[in-house]
């Protein structure tokens, strides 16, 4: 039986790593290619409207799925060290994201005040919802593991 810290069934097979790189590296050139085509065909106005609505979505989807595949696909020789490194990296990632989501909008807000622009508190709700969801799930999983440990002590 595997220890709790050696569970790796949630990981994808190593072949997903290739797709991760394809999505990650291919995502940006794809957007640039579309942009170039739009400029060349003179459809800039329509593209601007489309980009403001959907551009970030199309940019984020391949990048985020690519990054997800890269992080969650097994190494060719997956073992406890890579598992430990992945967990540690995820902890740092969550911490950085939490700080960034709080600090970046705040910096933008201070910047608007500093430059004398109209007072406007930054919209952070949507971004923070992602972090909250992430932390909620991480806490729930952590709690479940601790519950299992406590149950084993009975």
């Amino acid at each position, binding site marked *: 039986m595997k*220890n709790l810290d050696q569970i790796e069934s949630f990981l994808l097979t190593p072949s997903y790593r290739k797709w991760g790189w394809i999505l990650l590296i291919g995502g940006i050139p794809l957007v640039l290619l579309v942009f170039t085509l739009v400029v060349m065909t003179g459809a800039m106005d329509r593209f601007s409207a489309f980009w403001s609505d959907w551009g970030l979505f199309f940019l984020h989807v391949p990048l985020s799925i690519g990054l997800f595949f890269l992080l969650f696909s097994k190494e060719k*020789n997956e*073992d*406890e*060290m*890579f598992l*430990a490194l992945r967990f540690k990296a995820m902890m740092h990632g969550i911490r950085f994201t939490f700080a960034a989501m709080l600090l970046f909008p705040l910096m933008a807000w201070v910047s608007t005040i500093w430059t004398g622009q109209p007072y406007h508190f930054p919209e952070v709700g949507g971004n923070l919802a992602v972090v909250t969801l992430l932390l909620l799930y991480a806490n729930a999983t952590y709690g479940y593991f601790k519950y299992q440990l406590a149950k084993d002590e009975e």
Partner: protein
Amino acid sequence: MKNSIKVERAKKDLTQEDLAQLIGVSRQTINSIEKGKYVPSTVVSLKMSKVFGAPINDFMGLDENDA
């Protein structure tokens, strides 16, 4: 943690790759353990003990930073 895995490995004439295959981890992990960058689990330590034919204390131990 300090260790003399490299020495024990040399005594048995094993490469990092050989040892990695014998205990079911990657070569990178053996390298990291030897350089003190990663502390292996008890299971991996016991597997190494079996391969070297020596108790864990003979090739791994605490150093002053662990006190």
